[in-house]
């Protein structure tokens, strides 16, 4: 999977809390600063790869549709760690290149 900066940002947001907490789409959007049109295709890709677990939760307020929650799977956590390491190494290399 292509790791764009947006993809890495979503992985980072999902990995917060050890990847054990469920997150809402809107919360992820606020944390990452991504719009829905960017966020949801990324989440769908993670889901297709088996990195993301999702579930529906009934809304506390009556009349509102159930909300979708997301959490990283074990494979997702491993992939996230690897992707974040690669991203930080890349930024370090770019920083060094910029300094020299």
């Amino acid at each position, binding site marked *: 999977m292509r790791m764009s900066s947006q993809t890495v940002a979503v992985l980072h947001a999902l990995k917060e809390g050890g990847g054990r907490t469920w997150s*809402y*789409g*809107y919360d992820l*959007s606020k944390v990452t600063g991504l*719009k*829905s*049109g*960017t*966020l*949801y*295709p990324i*989440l*769908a890709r993670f889901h*297709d790869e088996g990195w993301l677990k*999702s579930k529906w939760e009934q*809304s506390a307020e009556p009349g*509102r*549709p*159930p*909300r*979708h929650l997301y959490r990283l799977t074990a494979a997702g956590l491993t992939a996230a760690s690897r992707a974040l390491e690669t991203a930080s190494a890349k930024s370090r290399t770019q920083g060094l290149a910029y300094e020299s």
Partner: protein
Amino acid sequence: MRVDIKQFLADAVARCLNRCMLLLLPANRRAWGHALVAEQQEISNRQERLAWAAGGIAICLNELTQRICSDGPTWTAGIAFGIVSALVDLHSTTRLAVHAVVVVVRVGSCVLVGKVGMAMDSFACIEFAPCRTGHDTIGAPTRPTASTYFMDLFRRRSAHGLGSRCAATRLMHKPTDH
């Protein structure tokens, strides 16, 4: 009771965008569309809510683009054949067709290649040749088989008994009743 017109309009536009998105999204991505709509209820800011709803349309366009790109060979073959069938006319003495426009339409899993002819003896006729691409849903691995287009065409040619003439060209020129 006072109605906030701006709020009413924003809600109407958001609802319209949601409906369009759910209509345009392929079946395997529709759950994501419902998830996007559900999250929208949590957004209190009007503009933010509209932007969130507009994101759904962006997702649809993204899916459409991916579908077209993944199905490139079929599109290319369809368009190429359409152009050839528009330029060559075995009925004319010059073998060149005039006053013809190629139409390529995608309907479901089929690419339809057609030619709109404007000959003197026939007012206008559109004939489409189907082309099965061999996949049903977006996201599933695609195996576009452009050759099925030609197989279909040959099958039609033999069914119509058109002999060695160009099937597409012949089909374009249905005799008119006088």
